[in-house]
């Protein structure tokens, strides 16, 4: 089966929804589709569905999109590969199909930087945003003791979500130092809505221990996590917990963009002022162009949606984007992972979780490619999405070209391809 859409949006988070919304608002004759691999729209920040969010921007976008007769939402649908120019192969729980488009908007979001340390493979250790996402999907955290660790303002949002759902937050462990955090807090005056959000989080998290300039050095437990060791004020101390939610910030998901041949600059998809990538008819918005949060994603999505329709973009949108890009730059500066995190993995610490490849096997390797060939690092089902970021941080390796299908595919999904369409 092949479907055709004038504008195809990949990703139904804030950027994708804003893009679809802007395109739909520009005229009712264009056929628009928004594809997402999750069962519900909203991406990570609006996980659980945009209709259920406190953020009214989510509810409004979704309400309008639901009311637009020319917008189709394809949930639980994962992009596997490009079959020919202007056509993607996708797969849902039941079947594979192809989708053709005139304009493609990539809004594929970000994932967490998850760094290896002893014990990080134990059940009970998750990403920071990871546990938040799981909890939003009903993962039971009621009465559980949780250490939230890593870096960035996301840790506060994660702790607030978990606390709201009945978890006991044993501590928030932030690797950034106090001077950097203080500078960042002062800079929130430039983005008043973020200052308000921070103040609200501060109230919600009152009484919870917050350790700056600190980081988790190991997770312990037999079959399940029971405690973590934290480096703080020059000494190590243990904290008992049921879950460790640990993430070192976000990184753009660029696999699809790379598979399409889009130029990448410092880990993010390079775009022009109209969110156009280096590939004709392919645009990118949101975290894929560089991590900046929901506000930047919304304005980029809007610009991309308008540009894809050939509509003009008003200067106020460009100004708004510049403002949030400034916020993004301050985030990146404040919460850059510290050097000591490179020293946590021990010789027997698993780095590639799919293939169980340890640090001692990898540190001898000269490159990502060599590691893949010699050790199978990055050859498992996550296709290097987790260990590729970790080995970049630990060893300075750059992953080479992305391979298709970009996500694990059922054999049947590939077999159904007509021979002339193979790339």
């Amino acid at each position, binding site marked *: 089966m092949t479907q055709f859409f004038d504008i195809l949006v990949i990703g139904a988070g804030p950027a994708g929804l804003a893009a679809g919304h802007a395109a739909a608002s520009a005229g009712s004759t264009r056929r628009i589709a928004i594809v997402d691999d*999750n069962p519900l729209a909203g991406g990570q920040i609006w996980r659980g569905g945009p209709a259920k969010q406190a953020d009214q921007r989510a509810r409004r976008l979704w309400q309008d999109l639901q009311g637009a007769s020319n917008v189709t939402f394809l949930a639980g649908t994962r992009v596997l590969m490009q079959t020919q120019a202007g056509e993607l192969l996708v797969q849902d729980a039941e079947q594979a199909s192809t989708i053709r488009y005139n304009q493609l908007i990539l809004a594929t979001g970000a994932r967490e930087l998850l760094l290896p340390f002893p014990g990080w493979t134990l*059940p009970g250790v998750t990403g920071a945003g*990871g546990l938040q996402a799981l909890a939003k999907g009903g993962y039971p955290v009621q009465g559980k003791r949780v250490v939230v660790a890593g870096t960035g303002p996301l840790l506060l949002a994660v702790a607030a979500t978990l606390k709201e759902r009945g978890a006991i937050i044993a501590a928030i462990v932030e690797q950034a130092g106090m001077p950097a955090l203080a500078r960042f807090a002062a800079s929130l005056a430039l983005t008043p809505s973020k200052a308000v959000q921070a103040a609200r989080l501060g109230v919600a998290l009152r009484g919870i221990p917050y350790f700056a300039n600190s980081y988790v050095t190991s997770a312990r437990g037999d079959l399940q996590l029971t405690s973590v060791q934290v480096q703080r004020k020059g000494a190590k101390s243990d904290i008992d917990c049921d879950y460790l939610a640990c993430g070192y910030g976000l990184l753009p*998901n660029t696999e699809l963009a790379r598979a399409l041949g889009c130029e990448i600059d410092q880990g993010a998809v390079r775009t022009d002022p109209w969110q156009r990538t280096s590939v004709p008819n392919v645009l990118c918005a949101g975290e894929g162009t560089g991590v900046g949060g929901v506000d930047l994603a919304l304005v980029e999505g809007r610009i991309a949606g308008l540009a894809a329709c050939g509509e003009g973009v008003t200067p106020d949108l460009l100004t708004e984007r510049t403002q949030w890009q400034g916020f993004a730059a301050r985030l990146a500066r404040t919460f850059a992972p510290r050097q000591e995190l490179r020293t946590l993995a021990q010789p027997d610490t698993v780095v590639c979780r*799919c293939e169980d490849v340890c640090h001692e096997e990898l540190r001898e390797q000269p490159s990502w490619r060599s590691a893949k060939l010699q050790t199978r690092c990055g050859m498992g089902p996550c296709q290097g999405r987790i260990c590729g970021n970790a080995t970049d941080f630990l060893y300075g390796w750059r992953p080479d070209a992305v391979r298709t299908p970009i996500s694990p595919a059922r054999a049947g999904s590939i077999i159904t391809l007509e021979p002339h369409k193979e790339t």
Partner: protein
Amino acid sequence: MAESITLTIDGRGTTVAAGSTVAAAIAGVTRRSVSGQLRAPLCGMGVCQECRVTINGRAHVLSCQTLCRSGMDVQTGAVA
């Protein structure tokens, strides 16, 4: 109160609130790694593949991106 759903996980009936993911219903070990380690969900958002299980006979389904449905039969890798 939200509607509830009953499904089977490794042969045991489990009841969860409607809208829960299969990962939430399992709330623990989802698979064994290639060297036999027990693993549970990590990224929570369909990237790491640690949460993959067998659902209604179909292997390698990501439990964090799958909503529970009544009567679903889920097999984790926790049971050897």
